[in-house]
C-alpha cells in the first residue's frame, strides 16, 4: 500500500464519510421539499399548469438512494485499501456493484423520465417531446458511461488479483 500512501487513503475515507453525511442531509431536505410541494400542489418550474407528482419524488429518491449506496461501497473499498487488501475478490464485487448501481440508476431514470414526460404532455400539450427526451437522455447516457468505466476498472482489478495470486504461488 506504499505507493498510494496511507494519508491519501485516510483522506479518501474521510471525504467519502463526509459526502455520505452531506448526501443524507441534502437528500432529506430535498425529499422533504418535494413532499411539501406535492402536498400543496405547487406547479413545476418552467412548465405551465403541471404540478408536482409522485414521480418527481421517486426520481429524486432514486438520486439520493443510488448516491448513498455508491458512497457506502466506495468507503468500504477505501477501508479495505487501508488494510492492505487491494486486489481482493470482495473489492472486485463491490466495484462491479458500483457499476450496476450506475446502470440501474440510468434505467430507472429513463423509465421515470418517460412517465413524467407523458404526464407533462398530457397537461401542457405543447411540450416538444423530442427535445425533452433528447435533453433528458443526455445525462442518462453519462451514467451508462460511468457504469461502463467502473466495470472496466473492475475487470482490471480481476487481472490484478490473478497476478497477485500467481505471485503468492511463486513465493
Amino acid at each position: 500500500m506504499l505507493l498510494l500512501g496511507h494519508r491519501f487513503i485516510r483522506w479518501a475515507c474521510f471525504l467519502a464519510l463526509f459526502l455520505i453525511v452531506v448526501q443524507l442531509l441534502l437528500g432529506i431536505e430535498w425529499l422533504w421539499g418535494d413532499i411539501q410541494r406535492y402536498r400543496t400542489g405547487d406547479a413545476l418550474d418552467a412548465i405551465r399548469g403541471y404540478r408536482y407528482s409522485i414521480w418527481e419524488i421517486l426520481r429524486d429518491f432514486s438520486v439520493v438512494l443510488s448516491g448513498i449506496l455508491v458512497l457506502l461501497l466506495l468507503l468500504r473499498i477505501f477501508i479495505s485499501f487501508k488494510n492492505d487488501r487491494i486486489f481482493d475478490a470482495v473489492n472486485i464485487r463491490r466495484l462491479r456493484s458500483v457499476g450496476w448501481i450506475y446502470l440501474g440508476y440510468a434505467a430507472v431514470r429513463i423509465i421515470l423520465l418517460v412517465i413524467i414526460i407523458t404526464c407533462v404532455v398530457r397537461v401542457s400539450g405543447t411540450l416538444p417531446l423530442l427535445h425533452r427526451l433528447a435533453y433528458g437522455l443526455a445525462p442518462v447516457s453519462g451514467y451508462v458511461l460511468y457504469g461502463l468505466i467502473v466495470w472496466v476498472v473492475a475487470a482490471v482489478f480481476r487481472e490484478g488479483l490473478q497476478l497477485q495470486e500467481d505471485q503468492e504461488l511463486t513465493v
Partner: protein
Amino acid sequence: MKQTSHRRIIYWAYRLVSVWLFFQLLYLVWRVFTLVHAANSRAPFFEHGQSNRWETANSLFHLLLPVVILSLLQDLLGSLRKQTAFDPGIIRKVRWIGFVYLGYALLEYVVFTIVPPWFTGQQRYPLVYGSSLLMGLLNLSGELFFGLLILALAGVFRYGLRLRRESELTI
C-alpha cells in the same frame, strides 16, 4: 484458447464502445448541422429549442464530452485487449479519462458561468454556480466526483504495476 471473464468483459466493452462512439459522432454531426441551419435561417433560436447562442454553444459542449470520453475509452480498451493492464501507458490513459472529467467540470464552470455575463449582460451569479460546482462533487452525477474517483483508482493501478515488475523479477 478459453477467455477469462475479465478478458471477455473488455472484449464486449470494446465492441459496445466502438458502436456507441459511431452513433455519438453521427448525433454530433446531426446536431451541428441543425444548429448551423438554424443560425442561417435567421429564425429565432428559441424555435429550434435554443434560447440563445450561449445555450447553443452549451449543448454542443455537452455533446463533445461523451465523444472525447468514448474515444479515450476505446483507445484504452483496444490497448487492454492486446497487453496487460499494468503498464505505464495504460495507467496514463486511465488518468487521462479522470483529467478530462475534471477539466470538463472546471471548464463548464468558467465558460458557462463566468464568461457569459461579459457578452450577454445576463447575470449568472458566479457564486451560486460555484456552489453548483461543489454540488457536482456532492451529488454523484458530477463529473468532478467521477474524475476524482477515476484518478484514485488509477493510483491503485500503480500498485499493480509494481506487483507485475516484482513478478517479472522473480521469474
